[in-house]
């Protein structure tokens, strides 16, 4: 593969990839361990004519991102646990008002201020259900610097195409790790659907025939439309309870649900004949991969699988991967979050076990191997 060879931090790769994806607006607030994203973009964005602003708080950052996106800009913010909690109300706003945006959450140990410089994967459920009410969301979680680059671009593409907020769920390890990456020479970039009708006929929340996603006009382009966090009709105006309200909620949620199959990205190794599969995501997947390889080397029928898409959870794909296994072990740096979804997916199919670590250290291959051997004996 050709391309520029770089030695980069995960956070830096995220910033670089965002610009590559067309990012032109970033608003943020300093918080460990995500700050390098803001620092990189404070330096890079002005030089490419984009906008960087350090807002007065996390809530304002999320708000400014939505405002910028409404003018047609590709917009992003980055934060960590406490800031992610603060952004939730406005993330819900973006979900209901269908405003594309990318939110990076570099996970650290919580709850509360927690262990600010230590890694964790404790925001898996918050990323899905952090804001109130049913809502659509897509959550991606990379395991390496290169994958951070790729998933950042994909996050923008999904967000623009589906008009949905996309959460990029990093962890402190991937965010701060530096690795060699080869920058891809060509990447595919998508933009939001734009209106084909003149302003007088534009209904901002009416999908085109055969589609479930309404085209989006930019503020300032003469369409003069209303955007609200209230339930609204196809014209964008507020509505009360009833059939139209239900239709709106179902449509925005189904945008993502209907695309489950195209939102699958898994990596699988040695699963065909595996009796036990270690299933993981984020930085932990790297320990899981090493553990599975070590065990294979010692003759055990152990496989490795990881998902880069946390939500929507790839239940169907996992069922196929684990078709021949009697056990799936899910190591995570939390007290067992994604394992709940694995249990739901593999209900009646096989045994699902959790492996947790919550002392602020990365899970090691050794401890996974020990746990697997206990299970296999």
């Amino acid at each position, binding site marked *: 593969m050709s391309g520029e060879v770089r030695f980069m931090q995960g956070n830096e790769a995220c910033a670089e990839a965002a610009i590559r994806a067309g990012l032109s607006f970033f608003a943020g607030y300093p918080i460990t361990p995500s700050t390098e994203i803001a620092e990189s973009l404070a330096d890079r964005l002005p030089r490419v004519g984009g906008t960087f602003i350090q807002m007065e708080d996390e809530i304002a950052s999320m708000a400014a991102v939505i405002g910028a996106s409404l003018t047609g800009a590709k917009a992003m913010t980055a934060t960590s646990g406490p800031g992610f909690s603060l952004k939730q109300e406005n993330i819900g706003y973006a979900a209901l008002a269908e405003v594309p945006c990318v939110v990076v959450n570099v996970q650290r140990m919580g709850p509360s201020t927690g262990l600010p410089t230590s890694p964790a994967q404790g925001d898996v459920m918050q990323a899905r259900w952090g804001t109130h009410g049913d809502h659509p969301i897509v959550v991606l979680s990379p395991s390496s610097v290169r994958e951070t680059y790729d998933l950042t671009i994909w996050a923008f593409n999904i967000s623009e195409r589906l008009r949905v907020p996309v959460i990029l769920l990093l962890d402190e390890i991937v965010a701060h*790790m530096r690795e*060699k990456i080869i920058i891809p020479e060509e990447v595919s970039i998508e933009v939001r659907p734009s209106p084909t009708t003149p302003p007088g006929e534009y209904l901002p929340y009416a999908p085109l025939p055969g589609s479930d996603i309404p085209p989006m006009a930019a503020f300032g382009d003469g369409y003069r439309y209303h955007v609200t966090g209230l339930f609204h009709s196809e014209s964008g105006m507020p509505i009360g309870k009833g059939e139209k309200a239900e239709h709106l909620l179902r449509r925005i949620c189904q945008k993502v649900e209907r695309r489950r199959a195209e939102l699958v990205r898994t990596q699988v190794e040695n699963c065909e004949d595996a009796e036990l599969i270690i299933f993981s995501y984020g930085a932990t997947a790297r320990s899981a*991969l090493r553990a599975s390889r070590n065990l294979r080397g010692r003759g055990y029928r152990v496989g490795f699988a990881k998902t880069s898409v946390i939500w929507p959870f790839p239940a169907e794909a996992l069922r196929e991967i684990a078709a021949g296994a009697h056990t799936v072990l899910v190591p995570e740096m939390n007290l067992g979050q994604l394992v709940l979804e694995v249990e739901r997916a593999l209900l009646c199919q096989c045994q699902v076990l959790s492996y947790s670590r919550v002392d602020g250290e990365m899970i090691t291959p050794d401890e996974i191997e020990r746990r697997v051997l206990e299970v296999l004996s």
Partner: protein
Amino acid sequence: MSYWQIRLAGEGGQGLILAGIILAEAAAIHEGKNAVQTQSYGPESRGGASKSEVIISDDEIDYPKVTVPDVLLVMTQVACDKYAKDIARGGVLIVDAGLVKRLPDIDAKVVASPITETAIACSGKAIVANIVALGLLVELTGVVSPGACEKAVLARVPPGTEQLNKKALEAGYALAKHAVPCQREGGR
């Protein structure tokens, strides 16, 4: 050897995280190998415990952290006491002789050199001790070539400090030439 685990440990402000990055870049960019650098640190950027880890390999690197270091550089007594026991059999432990007084009894080659003292002697500044240490480490272990290391140093250090850092690196190389492995106190 195609898989190196290197740990640099000391306290914040000693520049060990930067030294780890430079070492990894020397391997990844200038020698075409794979490299991963990770770190752990406390909330304070000065004075707290600081650890930088580098893995260098010809192959893909899955688990990014160091488990059994082949090379361990320690720049405080605390770091020495904490990490010396992890070192691989036959590995290399490098200590700053001016900062680490009690040496461990381990099955490894132990090199105690006046790293910070050399930095001050060659440049008048303790701040380049990390580069002296890097030169020493590279020369002792051969983990990367001195040429690659120099390129990586010059690419990373602030503009205007190239000569200073080059001098520090060379002082580190020279230090290796007359470094004598320490006599172990006990033996096993």
